[in-house]
């Protein structure tokens, strides 16, 4: 029995998924990327045996050189991973640590069109993480707290640095941190929804990447789009799963 690994080396975390010849998941591991992604990668690889591996994520080239693996972009990997879990997925939004992507698929599952956010961290997991910290929430509680808000304050800046000072001045005015938090979620969602609408105008949207674990994000996205938003159980591993499946299908 051959085992195929998919590894997604992101800016915040690294995921490894191993599938068998039938595409069934045999192992799924995660660790922080940290300062030494290669060492982090080695610890994952040692913990889950596989025969071949395909890398994706921003660190894919580093991995390719060190481990002589194949690589695939996050876009194709997320498309494949989302299709494995939702057979007729046609639109995907992936919001990860340092970038976000909206992907439209053809009926056969191939990528039809995609959009990626610009150079900065606006509208990504990193933005939410820094804002949560500024407001004194843990990243895991951030979405739940935002959902408790009475009303959403308007945050106009999408630049992480400017938004942080905007948030600081709202705190100084005595605003409820939960209302600020909801405003921040809204600002990210508006950006994500606009990106989705540029690639696809109707139908269900599969939400992948670590940010999909935030319940406020998924709820607001569905409202903003007026479309059903589907979230996999472990949205952060979809890229790794997709990479593993693509490799399996090649053999």
């Amino acid at each position: 029995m051959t085992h195929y690994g998919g590894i997604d080396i992101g800016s915040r975390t690294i995921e490894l998924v191993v599938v068998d010849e039938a595409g069934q998941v045999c192992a799924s591991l995660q660790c922080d990327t940290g300062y030494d992604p290669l060492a982090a990668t080695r610890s994952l690889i040692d913990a889950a045996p596989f025969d071949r591996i395909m890398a994706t994520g921003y660190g894919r080239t580093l991995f390719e050189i060190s481990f002589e693996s194949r690589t695939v972009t996050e876009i194709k990997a997320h498309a494949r991973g989302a299709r494995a879990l939702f057979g007729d997925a046609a639109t995907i939004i992936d919001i990860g640590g340092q970038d976000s992507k909206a992907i439209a698929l053809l009926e056969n599952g191939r990528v039809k069109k995609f959009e990626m956010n610009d150079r900065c961290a606006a509208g990504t997991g990193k933005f939410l993480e820094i804002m949560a910290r500024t407001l004194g929430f843990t990243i895991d509680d951030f979405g739940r707290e935002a959902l408790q808000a009475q009303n959403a304050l308007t945050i106009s800046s999408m630049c992480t640095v400017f938004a942080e000072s905007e948030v600081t001045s709202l705190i100084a005015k005595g605003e409820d941190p939960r209302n600020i938090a909801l405003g921040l979620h809204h600002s990210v969602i508006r950006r994500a929804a606009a990106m989705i609408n540029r690639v696809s105008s109707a139908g269900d949207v599969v939400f992948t990447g670590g940010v999909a674990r935030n319940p406020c994000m998924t709820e607001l996205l569905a409202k903003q789009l007026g479309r059903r938003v589907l979230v996999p159980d472990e949205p952060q591993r979809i890229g790794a799963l997709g990479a593993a499946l693509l490799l399996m299908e090649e053999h």
Partner: protein
Amino acid sequence: MSIDYQTMWTDLGLDLTSHDALLNVLGTAYRDIYLAQENRPETMAYFDFVMSEVHGLRIKELLDEKAAGRKIIGSYCVFVPEEMVLAANATLVGLCSGADFAMEEVEKLLPRNTCALIKSSFGFKLGKVCPYLESADMIVGENTCDGKKKAYESLRPLVDNLYVMDLPQVKSANGKALLKSEYLRFMEALQELTGVAVTTESLRSGIKTVNAKRNAIHRLSALRAADPAPISGLDALLANQVFFYDNPARFTDAVNKICDELEQRVASKSGVCPVGTPRILVSGCPQAVPNWKLPMIVENSGAIIVGEESCVGERGTRNCVDESGSTVDQLIDAIVERYFQVDCAIFTPNTDRLAHIEEMVKAYRADGVIHYGLQFCQPYLMEAIPVEKALEEKGIPCLRLETDYSMEDAGQLTTRVEAFVEQLR
């Protein structure tokens, strides 16, 4: 480069320390991007030599021409008619605008949100590192986009020989009349500068020289339609870039030699990449030397560029001038006729451009189009959206990129380009 040029550069007023730094970066980039390619045509050796001497031997040639009484005209745009320049016994050269230089100084004169091309042209002046600019007896600016036309107002105090040409923005009879009157005014200025009167013979000879140069590039472009592609997009872009710098007759000869070699490659079905490699047409803003960022990323991502719908490419070289006129005025009309067809995004509307993109996709058998927009280049970025939409409606995949000369977004661009290439496979 030889040490002999130090005196020449000092005499031109270049800042030797900065200039050395520029040449070092240029040399390293050329080695890493160009010389590292596999399976290059042997005849590209001529262009390797040209690039190694781009600030050396070529400048010496220009200075020798000057010493013999010829004038040097510097230009930033494909609307400046080289035919007239040659007819007035002068030489036309493109001025450097393909790399960031002296950005802090530039941003004292221009807003930050000015496109990289305009900023670069100022950087080369303020940093005193462009020997072409310093050799020029006349620098021709032109009213194309708002950025350039306002920038020339700020450039004027920095140079003592700026000539600004007005250009039409609409393809109407009035627009064509404006182009003709501006070309006549330019010819007057040239004649005054050189003291040489343009004659039917000299103008026809200028037209023939430039047509020959264009025909050589057309021949090269046609050969790129073959699968496997016989030449990389990087190398073909370089030929299109050197088009603006080199002695025209020698350039024509060198490109035709490349074509001879490529014809053999096509006949033997050999190329620079395997058959079936995804083929990409690049469309949009000009890519001036040494702006090789996009083709480097594309061709390192497993695709091959088969055409440039660009000023440094087919927009700049499309169509020849009718040589049959028997008076200066008839020949000028023919020149106006040819240049008035250039589908620059400063024109409104600019529907010819979309038709040309579609023609080029067919002619070069491109699988997809990458729309290359320089950040803050309003005319091309505005056109990018309808171009993308129109192409997608015809089933031609299109990737819209917006970037500048810095490498800070290279990782992001690589991911986008790789995903686009995956989409085409």
